[in-house]
């Protein structure tokens, strides 16, 4: 058996790291996920302002939540952005999906607080304005959260 030299071993590890990074690059949500979620956010905001019946708003919220849960599981929390590859949980970070969920819950809190503040200020259609503002935050921030998760995964790879 012939062993590689130090230089050959280094080149071999670089090649392996490059291959690993090509998988890490696949971590993320497809663009339609963020756009769809932002659209649903605005629809819920509109319903909250214009719908007279509370049960319609509640029903729509539950439907969006259930739909999102299904899609989120299909995308495995960002580990299966396409049907081409499924990134391992320990590579993406076992808490990667929790970070996305935490981001979404934070946006829910921002929506509610902002709508209440706008309502207290006497603004017309507070829920619509709050949901539009948060939808923009979602479109801008969602991909950044995934960038951060990818960067963490790359750092872990470099540390190994």
């Amino acid at each position: 058996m012939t062993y590689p030299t130090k230089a050959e071993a280094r080149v071999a590890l670089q090649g392996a790291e490059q291959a690993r990074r090509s998988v890490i690059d696949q971590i993320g949500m497809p663009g339609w996920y963020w756009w769809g979620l932002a659209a649903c956010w605005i629809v819920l905001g509109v319903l909250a302002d214009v719908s007279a019946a509370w049960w319609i708003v509640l029903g729509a919220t539950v439907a969006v939540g259930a739909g999102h849960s299904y899609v989120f599981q299909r995308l495995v929390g960002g580990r299966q952005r396409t049907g081409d590859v499924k990134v391992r949980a320990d590579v993406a970070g076992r808490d990667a999906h929790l970070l996305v969920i935490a981001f979404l819950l934070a946006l829910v809190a921002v929506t509610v607080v902002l709508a209440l503040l706008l309502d207290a200020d006497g603004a017309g259609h507070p829920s619509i304005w709050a949901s539009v503002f948060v939808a923009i935050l979602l479109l801008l921030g969602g991909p950044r959260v995934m960038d951060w998760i990818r960067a963490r995964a790359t750092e872990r790879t470099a540390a190994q």
Partner: protein
Amino acid sequence: MTPEARFDELIHPSTRLSIVALLAAADWADFAFVRDQLDLSDSALSKQLATLEEAGYIAIERPLSDRRRRVRARLTPLGRERYAGHVAALHEIIAEAPAAPASVSVED
């Protein structure tokens, strides 16, 4: 747990090492994805996958649920263990002088 360093001649050729490294980061990967990422031809990738499958390092799956005809590859537990051992062996070679003779080619 640190894997036991074990140089693996089957994995070491650069193309196979890249394939195994890619699969080590994934639960599974589509044939076309591996081919495109590593810039290989269909036949070259098929040949390497067949070698790795024969050694029991990877498993080839053909999911029936998709409309498209797909071929997926995944690393087996044996393949994962051997890859980890091989990477550890490469790190050892870099960290210290290799105990075994180096593969130096001498031209006349």
